[in-house]
């Protein structure tokens, strides 16, 4: 049987199955293998909202999406080129995102009467038989049966054998994409080293899947996706929340301070708490507080005591932290408040993504209460955003709000990680004990309007701070009208002055002048850049700028906007950055908003932009 090999530039695969089918592991192992081959990639897991949704149901479908290619890959992909469906529910939940001609790999053992009923197919309907899949390339494989057969001599229960069926699928895909099995076998050996029977079973299933592809006549074509022109260097895979963890620890190290993280469990921010809790040997103190308010207040206490203090949450939690953010602002203590945004308002869509807390971050406090706000634009970028948030907090003695969202928190991409020696130090100094007779002014300021960090325990600096308005300089309680106005202006000037200490805005792609500028922030980076690139290739004069700093804006942003006829602002919200840009620069913008709890797709943004540019 003649087998041919085709080269593809990029592929999006969705692994979908029941929660218990091991799709996350399958996806992760395939991703690691892909990365080793040098492709660029992006991934996105798609968990059921319920912890233990009933087996076989639509609610129980767990998915893992991988987009990889031999060119720059910036998003996990819009539509799937290949869907692996382990049961009927997995097919039903994902078929809408399949284009005609794309490939379905289905486990026919997951399409029995019960599975079809649980997937809510009509009585007697079976998508594998009714012609509804005509137009797709469908490979029907009896995965469960073949896995069991391959393991018939292994002394394991049927249930245990069935747990290996994801390895069969993985092996088959390795054959299809021309891969080596070594890295996966190595992984399995370290994971199941102490359970030789389970290890053998997994390796057997993996190899059986591979040989199945090789020997079965149905499968005639294998695919190659070549390495992408990535920068040379050492890479790892990283998820957004994981990158935040690494960023906070790195910042603490570079500032020479212990890291304190006060948090209350909330989706999708909890993984930061879980992640940091594992790094006590880096002098990381995690504190699972009794509620969101206590989480930030404990961080304020730790900041007062001289730690690099961070609190993390998601939208509803940020709402609860509001009053304490005002306190931290008034105390002028360094603090990073991390918001992994999700669909709102109220409890909203806890497991879905949204960018709808920008206005809350900018304005959501009582009184005149400016805070620096920065955002992360991709999973790996979370590292740099976390580091930058800590730097600003420590060097400008202010709380800083750091915005990420559910999409990049759980998404992953390859990261050319830095060496610790190449990361700059963060200057963070405590006020030293005064010399004899030297006065100490708790609210004295330097040229950047920054006060000193005088921590309890320092000899000769005993002083009181609090939420009441402060007398300039002395920090004593003051109800003086002129002083209050002065202090409001000073606190604002302090935040605005940060603009002198951040980089100017750069374009991510495109000409310096032109028809249109896409202006974005946060997790839309990948899709906007991909669309801009594609429009540029079609001859449009478009550029893309992505904001790290949302308050203060980079000094050159206004001038940059003036270089384009149209400013298009795509956001996963109802137009929040658009409002801010209009307000700040008094110019019209064209918002593109999607508020469905899912990322913007390349196709829809490109269509929209073409209409605008027509």
């Amino acid at each position, binding site marked *: 049987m003649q087998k041919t090999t085709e080269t593809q530039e990029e592929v999006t695969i969705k692994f979908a199955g029941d929660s218990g089918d091991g799709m996350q592991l399958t996806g992760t192992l395939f991703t690691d293998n892909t990365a080793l081959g040098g492709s660029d990639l992006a991934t996105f897991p798609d968990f059921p909202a319920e912890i233990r949704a009933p087996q076989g149901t639509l609610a129980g479908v767990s998915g893992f999406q991988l987009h990889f290619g031999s060119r720059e890959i910036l998003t996990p992909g819009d539509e799937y080129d290949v869907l692996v469906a382990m049961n009927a529910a997995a097919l039903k939940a994902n078929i809408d995102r399949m284009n005609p001609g794309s490939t379905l790999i289905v486990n026919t053992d997951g399409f029995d009467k019960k599975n079809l009923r649980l997937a809510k197919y009509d009585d007697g309907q079976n998508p594998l038989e009714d012609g509804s899949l005509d137009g797709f390339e469908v490979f029907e494989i009896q995965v469960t049966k073949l896995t069991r057969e391959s393991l018939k001599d292994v002394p394991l229960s049927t249930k245990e054998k069935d747990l290996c069926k994801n390895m069969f699928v993985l092996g088959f895909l390795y054959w299809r994409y021309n891969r080596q099995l070594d890295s996966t076998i190595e992984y399995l050996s370290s994971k199941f080293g102490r359970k030789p029977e389970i290890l053998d079973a997994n390796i057997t299933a993996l190899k059986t899947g591979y040989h199945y592809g090789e020997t079965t006549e149905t499968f005639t074509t294998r695919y190659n996706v070549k390495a992408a022109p990535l920068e040379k*260097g050492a890479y790892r895979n990283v998820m957004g929340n994981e990158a935040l963890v690494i960023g906070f620890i790195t910042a603490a190290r570079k500032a020479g301070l212990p890291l304190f993280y006060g948090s209350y469990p909330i989706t999708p921010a909890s993984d930061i708490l879980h992640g940091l809790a594992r790094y006590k040997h880096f002098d990381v103190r995690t504190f699972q507080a009794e509620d969101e308010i206590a989480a930030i*207040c404990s961080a304020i*206490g*730790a900041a007062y*005591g001289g730690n690099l203090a961070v609190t993390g949450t998601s939208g509803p939690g940020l709402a609860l932290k509001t009053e304490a953010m005002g306190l931290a602002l008034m*105390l002028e203590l360094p603090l990073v408040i991390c918001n992994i945004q999700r669909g709102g308002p109220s409890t909203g869509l806890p497991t879905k993504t949204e960018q709808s807390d920008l206005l809350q971050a900018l304005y959501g406090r009582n009184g005149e209460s400016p805070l620096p706000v920065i955002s992360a634009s991709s999973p790996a970028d979370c590292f740099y955003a976390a580091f930058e948030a800590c730097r600003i907090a420590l060097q400008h003695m202010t709380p800083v709000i750091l915005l990420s969202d559910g999409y990049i928190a759980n998404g992953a991409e390859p990261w050319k990680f830095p060496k610790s020696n190449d990361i700059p130090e963060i200057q963070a100094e405590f006020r030293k004990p005064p010399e004899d007779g030297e006065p100490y002014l708790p609210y004295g300021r330097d040229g950047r309007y920054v006060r000193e960090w005088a921590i309890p325990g320092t000899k000769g*600096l005993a002083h*009181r701070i609090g939420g009441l308005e402060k007398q300039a300089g002395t920090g004593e309680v003051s109800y003086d009208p002129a002083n209050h106005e002065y202090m409001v202006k000073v606190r604002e000037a302090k935040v605005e002055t940060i603009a002198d200490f951040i980089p100017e805005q750069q374009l991510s792609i495109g000409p310096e002048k032109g028809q249109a500028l896409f202006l974005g922030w946060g997790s839309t980076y990948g899709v906007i850049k991909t669309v801009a690139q594609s429009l540029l290739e079609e001859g449009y004069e478009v550029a893309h700028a992505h904001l790290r700093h949302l308050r203060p804006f980079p000094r050159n942003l206004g001038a940059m906007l003036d270089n384009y006829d149209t400013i298009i602002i795509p956001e996963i919200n109802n137009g929040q950055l658009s409002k801010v840009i209009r307000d700040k620069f008094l110019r019209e913008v064209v918002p593109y908003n999607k508020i469905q709890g899912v990322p913007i797709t390349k196709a829809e943004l490109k269509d929209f932009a073409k209409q605008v540019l027509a």
Partner: protein
Amino acid sequence: MSTTNGTIPLAAKDFATDQDVRWCPGCGDYSILKQVQTVFAELGLDRDQVAIISGIGCSSRFPYYLETYGMHSIHGRAPAVASGLKLANPDLHVWVITGDGDGLSIGGNHLLHLLRRNFNVNVLLFNNQIYGLTKGQYSPTSEEYKITKSTPMGSLDHPVNPLAFALGSEGTFIARAMDRDPKHLKEMIHRCHNHQGTSFLEIYQNCNIFNDGAFFSFTDKETKPETTIFLEHGQPLRFGKNREKGIRLDCFRPQIVDLENDGYSPGDLWIHDETDICKAHMLARFFDAPGRQQKMVLPRPFGVLYAAERPCYEDLLYDQLKQAVGQKGEGRLDELLAGSTTWEIS
């Protein structure tokens, strides 16, 4: 005596700030402030090693009047701020100043968790059974049917029992004092300082503007001997003008007996044991409102109801930090950055 750092001992006045004290003339807070300053001087505390954390309310102005580090934070949240500060610097002497509204209404949650975690901080809860700073609404400790601005027909809330709450929150040191008995108050403040773990001291404090005389029957010379009982570890529970009365346990029921007429001797009485959690719960239930019930009214206990040893949260955390370094070695940044799986693009 010498101070902790070997310099000239400080006097009580050295713990006073240059700020004008702004409580109403005649407020019970003055007495508490004076006793705290006196105890700090007696303990020889270094001003730089003390941090006073408060919430919002009349009592929470306290940090402004003590020449130490201090933070006037937000309503009800002082225990959370204090927890973070104590974790950052376990060597500090951290005192939380709160009131019945701040600590038991808006901040009840945080007080509960501070107590069960047993951070080594001291909580002084000034209980005046009224909201003073907002000018006279009933508080969570106000008696039932209280007529206030917000309850013209009388309040409908059943009051919280602060010591029962603190015991229920797994507190390790539970005590009560009053502003009008400075000597005893001072002794209790000393005990708070000495206790390892969260010390909870409820202080009956008279608000002479909005709730004058709320504790009159406990503090007035005439009635005090009959309405109060001062607890001493290892001593029988005795009270009365001539200490002629006592409490004995009739099975599990506390009973007032007259030592002169009922034929009981001090040996028959309930001997106070601070370490006995069950008896501490019973003592906390000595919570009758004097004069209201027809039945026998048990005297209100003052002093240390309960004191026990339990590891402090911050010590446990620092043990884990050390243990983690012991197991994994000092964290290396390059290993963290690289993670477990890397590949090379060349």
